[in-house]
């Protein structure tokens, strides 16, 4: 709240600032605000104004074999890529913070390069590299590249959590008789879990939203939800796309909220004061 002694200029700024914040939030949300109502339109085209309300595009989405196939593919590729990226990224971050070796400072940029290099280049590169190996038009190739795209997020978030890690906990655990592996499972992992979870979340959404690499690597069998939406937009602009988008958004939001809640809970336990 504003203190009593605030001058008119301060009052003006106080309200302008609040207004600006709202505008920024609205801007960020506008694609959602634009697309979600359209999914409830009875009309056959993606146009405003909405004349009457209907569930028909959701029925279309859930009843159509192509949409369901792509949804299934997304739920195969994204979780697999997430698990791979999270495991590898966490191990890389732990190794980078605990060990000391020559060339260490070069390794970090290499690991996060998939985030820096334009995705089209990653797509072309992966295609050229994978096709002689028979890794195009198959799930494994797609999962590998999606995992590579997710690793940088995991490495960054886990490294950040580890930078505040009290290393005498590892010594304490060893002195109490725990092998290094057990120490990692019982002490290190639970304490860096918030970082691991955030990283996994980023890795998941990276794969779940990914179109470009999928365009290069996926055959008709591996079409994912975003890829299906992309071709849907090119061919016929049916509001079923809006329904698909709404489902995607709903799922991502639910995931985010659940993990945020879990993370907040474990954080509260560790920093709780009597």
């Amino acid at each position: 709240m504003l203190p009593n002694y605030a001058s008119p200029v301060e009052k003006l700024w106080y309200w302008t600032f609040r207004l600006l914040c709202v505008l920024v939030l609205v801007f960020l949300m506008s694609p959602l605000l634009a697309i979600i109502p359209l999914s409830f339109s009875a009309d056959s085209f993606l146009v405003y104004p909405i004349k009457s309300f209907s569930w028909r595009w959701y029925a279309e989405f859930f009843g159509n074999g192509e949409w369901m196939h792509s949804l299934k593919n997304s739920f195969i590729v994204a979780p697999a890529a997430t698990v791979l990226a999270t495991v590898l990224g966490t191990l890389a971050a732990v190794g980078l913070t605990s060990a000391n070796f020559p060339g260490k400072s070069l390794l970090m940029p290499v690991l996060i390069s998939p985030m820096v290099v334009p995705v089209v280049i990653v797509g072309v590169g992966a295609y050229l590299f994978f096709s002689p190996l028979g890794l195009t038009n198959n799930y494994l190739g797609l999962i590998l590249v999606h995992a590579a795209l997710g690793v940088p997020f995991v490495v960054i978030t886990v490294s950040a959590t580890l930078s505040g890690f009290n290393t005498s906990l590892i010594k304490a655990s060893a002195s109490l008789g725990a092998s290094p592996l057990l120490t990692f499972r019982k002490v290190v992992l639970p304490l860096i879990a918030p970082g691991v979870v955030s990283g996994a979340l980023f890795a998941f959404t990276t794969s779940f939203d990914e179109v470009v690499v999928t365009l290069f690597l996926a055959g008709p069998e591996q079409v994912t939800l975003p890829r299906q939406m992309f071709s849907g937009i090119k061919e016929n602009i049916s509001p079923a796309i809006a329904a698909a988008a709404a489902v995607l958004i709903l799922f991502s939001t639910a995931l985010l909220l659940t993990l945020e809640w879990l993370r907040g809970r474990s954080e509260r336990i560790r920093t709780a004061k009597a």
Partner: protein
Amino acid sequence: MPEVVPDNDVLVSFRGVQKSYDGESLIVKHLDLDIQKGEFLTLLGPSGSGKTTCLMMLAGFETPTHGEIRLNGALLNHVPPHKRNIGMVFQNYALFPHMTVGENLAYPLKIRNFSKSDVDAKVLHALSMVKLEKLAHRYPAQLSGGQQQRVALARALVFSPQLVLMDEPLGALDKQLREHMQMEIKHIHDSLGVTVVYVTHDQGEALTMSNRVAVFKDGIIQQIDSAYTLYEAPSNSFVASFIGENNTLEGEVLSLQDGFCHVKLGDGVGLKAKAVCADKAGARTTMSIRPERVRLNGASEQCANRFTGKLQEFIYFGDHVRLRMEVAGNAGFIVKVPVSELDGSWSVGDSIALGWNPEDIRALDPLHP
């Protein structure tokens, strides 16, 4: 008064141990040390003298560059830390923040596959030892510093290790709590009979708690003895100046006889002192005498060494008074007098007769060669 080591069996032995972190300078220069079973041994020394390094080598977190360490006769050099069965208390407690107090204590027991009922009983017993039974369900962040320290202590003892290492465990506590915990640790040591190696740079702590104290300097043990011997019979001038308060006089050895020596001070005055390090006539020596061994006025008349001191300052300490005097050209000479023996007629600037016995002043190695 010197304390006797309870058991003569050796638990830990260091033989010719050296440690260098960078391959050039030796942090631990040469360590030969036997730690007796049931002993409370303190490593005392100034910052950077290699105390923590020695402890870490024993715990297995650092490897000796040379030499061997044995536990119960078995070579430790290639045993990883988690297989050594040595308890450890860290300065910053190192409690697992995501586990409750009870879970922290159960951790080493579960690793050792104790049954659920054994775990519960041992945890409860360890908690009652440090008087924290009621806090088993709290998280470490919900405890005060002193309580966390007790949990750390209980956790290091709960799996009944033969040996417990403590690296400045009380460093973060305030003075009163620290003194209380010193007594508590001492009592726990006495009742369990566990061997403790304790690191501190607080000499009061070292003297009150230990069976033996090893005084470190520059990676070498200067002297290892009971608190009484260290204080009353320091074997070199570093130990004399590091432990307790101490007056020093510089001089040159004139002659040696029957363990005593005659020394000429800078201003030509002679005195007789116990020859500890002084081994030949003509050598320089630093002599050390404790402030409470100096006698004043009438009491000084039977002493072999007699001087006149010029009173410069009274310093009041409640139970005693320290007199700062100039003696034989030495301005910082301190004499400790119980309040009851104070003479009301003394005032700053007076000359007072003082003296001490030859066995109370020790001729040691020269502090400034």
